[in-house]
């Protein structure tokens, strides 16, 4: 379990100080895939670097399984970092080492015997699906493959926590999806807690079970992904839930006699089915598409949609049940909190 208590971080810049993080309080349970989402400059990267103390917080505590990382000696902290590993947007592999040697690197640092390290590294190459890249150099790999090697490297010391700092931001949608699947697999099979830093809603929707919305150095909202995205209470959350500068206030005003359903497609196999049209025909519910941002990757649909449904309890229930038949589609009502 990771607890952040009253965490704050400020950077001196000339005469003033920039407060990057202000009184952050978060609890991340074991086994969570915890999303931390926010716009650029919200303090996400600083926050994730405070978790393994790459950045020293200026106030507050970071507790990992009850141990305050700030109290550790430099040597103890280095040992603790083997349990909290990290992957990055730019992969950050050693370009002059082969893939196998890159994966061996953290074990080498930890003083593991070379033969043992190589054996472990080969095992991990298979885990990330690149068993034939042992002797390849990172420059010979695609971005997605490099990130897989970076993930294997991060797993080498058998960590309890994996920090992902915008790990998919440099990748195309298809590769993003496959990397996220790998991360979810690792979370499930190895029981590693994952903290995902991202500015992409789709990433949180696809793999996270809990989310914190970071805005201007503070946690605007925190909770289960479904809950937070269904009832965005704060402006920061609304900006994420209604992106593309959808004017939230007007959206509500224009549809006073409607209730709003948010439909999230998590790789649903329904690109060939006209869901809204068939709902109109089979259930006789006329849905008003208020907003839609979906994309098709292969045969799968990702993204989300806001539907205006006539304001009637029974209709809303039926629409929710109809659209939510596939387990890859999540339907939730968005409540008006204004």
């Amino acid at each position, binding site marked *: 379990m990771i607890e952040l208590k009253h965490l704050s971080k400020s950077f001196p810049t000339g005469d003033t100080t920039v407060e990057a993080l202000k009184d952050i309080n978060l609890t991340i349970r074991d086994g969570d895939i915890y999303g931390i989402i926010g716009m650029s400059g919200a303090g996400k990267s600083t926050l994730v670097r405070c978790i*393994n103390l*790459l950045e020293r917080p200026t106030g507050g505590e970071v507790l990992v399984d009850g141990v305050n990382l700030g109290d550790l000696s430099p040597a103890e*902290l*280095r*040992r*603790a*970092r*083997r349990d909290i*590993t*990290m992957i*990055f947007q*730019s992969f*950050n*592999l*050693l*370009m*002059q*080492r082969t893939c196998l040697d890159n994966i061996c*690197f*953290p074990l*080498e*640092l*930890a003083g593991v015997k070379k033969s043992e390290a190589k054996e472990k590294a080969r095992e991990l190459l298979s885990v990330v699906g690149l068993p034939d890249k042992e002797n390849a*150099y*990172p*420059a*010979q790999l695609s971005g997605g493959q490099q990130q897989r090697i970076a993930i294997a*490297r991060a797993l080498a*010391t058998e960590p309890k926590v994996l*920090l992902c700092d915008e790990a998919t931001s440099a990748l195309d949608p298809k590769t993003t999806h496959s990397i996220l699947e790998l991360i979810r697999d690792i979370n499930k099979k190895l029981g590693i807690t994952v903290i995902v830093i991202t500015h992409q809603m789709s990433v949180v929707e696809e793999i996270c079970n809990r989310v914190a919305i970071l805005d201007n150095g503070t946690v605007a909202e925190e909770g289960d992904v479904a809950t937070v995205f269904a009832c965005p209470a704060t402006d920061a959350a609304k900006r994420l839930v209604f992106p593309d500068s959808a004017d939230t206030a007007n959206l509500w005003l224009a549809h006073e006699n409607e209730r709003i359903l948010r439909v999230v497609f998590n790789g649903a196999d329904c690109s060939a089915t006209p869901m809204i049209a068939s709902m109109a025909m089979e259930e006789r519910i006329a849905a008003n598409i208020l907003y839609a941002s979906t994309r098709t990757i292969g045969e799968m649909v990702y993204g989300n949609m806001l539907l205006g449904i006539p304001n009637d309890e029974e209709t809303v229930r039926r629409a929710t049940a109809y659209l939510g038949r596939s387990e890859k589609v999540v339907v939730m009502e968005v409540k008006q909190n204004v």
Partner: protein
Amino acid sequence: MFENLFDPRKVAEAWEVLRTEVPFAIWETFYATLLATFFAILLGLPLGVLLVVGEKGGILPLPAWLMKTLNVIINLLRSVPFLLMIVLVLPLTRLIVGTSVGTVASVVPLTIAAFPFIARLVESSLRELDPNVIEAAQSMGATPFQIIVKVMIPESVPSLISNFTIAITTILGYTAMSGAIGGGGLGKVALNYGYYRYKYLVMLIAVILLIIMVQLFQSLGTFFATKSDKRLKHK
């Protein structure tokens, strides 16, 4: 000066010098250059590393006054003209080698002149490295020493080879200069036979040989720098 350069008598003279003096002079220039480069790297590499890791925000921050002192010393040493450097370090040369004349003796001023230069070259090589890679190593629990020997230096090898090649060719030029004040090698041959005894053909040949040596070192350096760089995809 260059008229009648290929007069049969002069060619015969030049051939005599070429036969008796030049092979050994080439060897002297060669080993003075390599020896001085070796010692200069021995001193300059750690110093260059220190310049990068020791600065504020580096992986092993050192006191600001120490960094300032190092920088001033390097700049001072680099601004002394080489010819004067030979004279200035004469006492040190005598102390270390026992004499201040000859090729071995010239290695001392060559090293003193070259190591601050190499420190600066190492500094610039190491600064090319992506800081994110160093951060990644820190996130894996690497000690500052491990970062230096396992990340910074190995990742900079191609750039270091390129820069050391620049250093070798510069030092080669310096060895020729040391011929003016007691040093051996091709510089001495060019000056003693070519300039002082008006055998301009000898001077010309010595210069051409120096050019060939520079070309050789440069080609080898470029070859190894390219060969060692695993970032190049076409291999």
